[in-house]
């Protein structure tokens, strides 16, 4: 059970990486085209929900973790920041405006999530 939860949690995180890489390419001026943006947005939808739900499930399932641990609450806050800025990046890009600044904030939040997941400060 733990193995499958962790695998699916990781897979969801890799979907988020697809979004971060695609939007980074756009921010750096690459001509990604609409299909790549559509795939990136879909990956964010699935990966975002997947990381949150499976992450909380793992926190409940694993002995020694609690959902109210500081690093897990920090991860939830970063997830909310990434989701909020990601939504803004999506709408600004759809409106034809530059979404670079807001995208880099989201990318930093995602990077912060990875730092928390690896170091687990206080765990």
């Amino acid at each position, binding site marked *: 059970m*733990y193995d499958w939860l962790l695998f699916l949690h990781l897979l969801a995180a890799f979907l988020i990486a697809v979004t971060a890489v*695609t939007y980074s390419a756009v921010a750096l001026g690459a001509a990604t085209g609409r299909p790549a943006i559509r795939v990136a947005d879909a990956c964010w939808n699935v990966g975002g929900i997947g990381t949150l739900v499976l992450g909380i499930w793992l926190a409940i399932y694993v002995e020694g973790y609690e959902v109210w641990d500081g690093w897990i609450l920090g991860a939830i806050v970063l997830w909310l920041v990434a989701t909020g800025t990601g939504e803004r990046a999506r709408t600004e890009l759809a409106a034809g405006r530059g979404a670079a600044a807001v995208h880099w904030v989201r990318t930093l939040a995602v990077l912060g999530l*990875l730092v928390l997941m690896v170091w687990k400060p206080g765990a």
Partner: protein
Amino acid sequence: MTLFAAIRPDEWNLPLFLHVLAAMVLVGTLVLVAVSLAGASQGGSVGAVRLGFRGLLLAALPSWIVMRVTAEWLASEENLDEDPPGWVDAGYMISETTLLLLIAATVCAGVAARRAGRVEAGGGGTGRAGAGGGGLGRAVVVLVGIALVAYVVAIWLMATKPS
């Protein structure tokens, strides 16, 4: 077992972070390359073919190197390099096989980008298939697709560590 899974020595954290980050950039780039080139072969976009080539050369291959070097670092920290378990061996095998696929895909994408550039410079005289990468573009999509499937298996191996 679940409590054990939560505990990891601090020395493993930096190589693990870099390993996962590089793997994420690698997979993210490969999905972007596959989608771009699949779209290019249908719509004839020269920019998408160039993006595929640059993505493979400037992001996927360097990420693969970081992913592999940090894998060795982690194996050394965990003392798995002397007598590696099956899941580590399988990970190495997947990474080495996919490197060949990535090199082949990069060469194909480079040639496709060059041809697409010539088509664009010549006013698109040889048609949309040339501008969009044609058969080479499709070959890159297949090679990258195989690599992506292999990486999903590798993620499963790294997460579950089957003995």
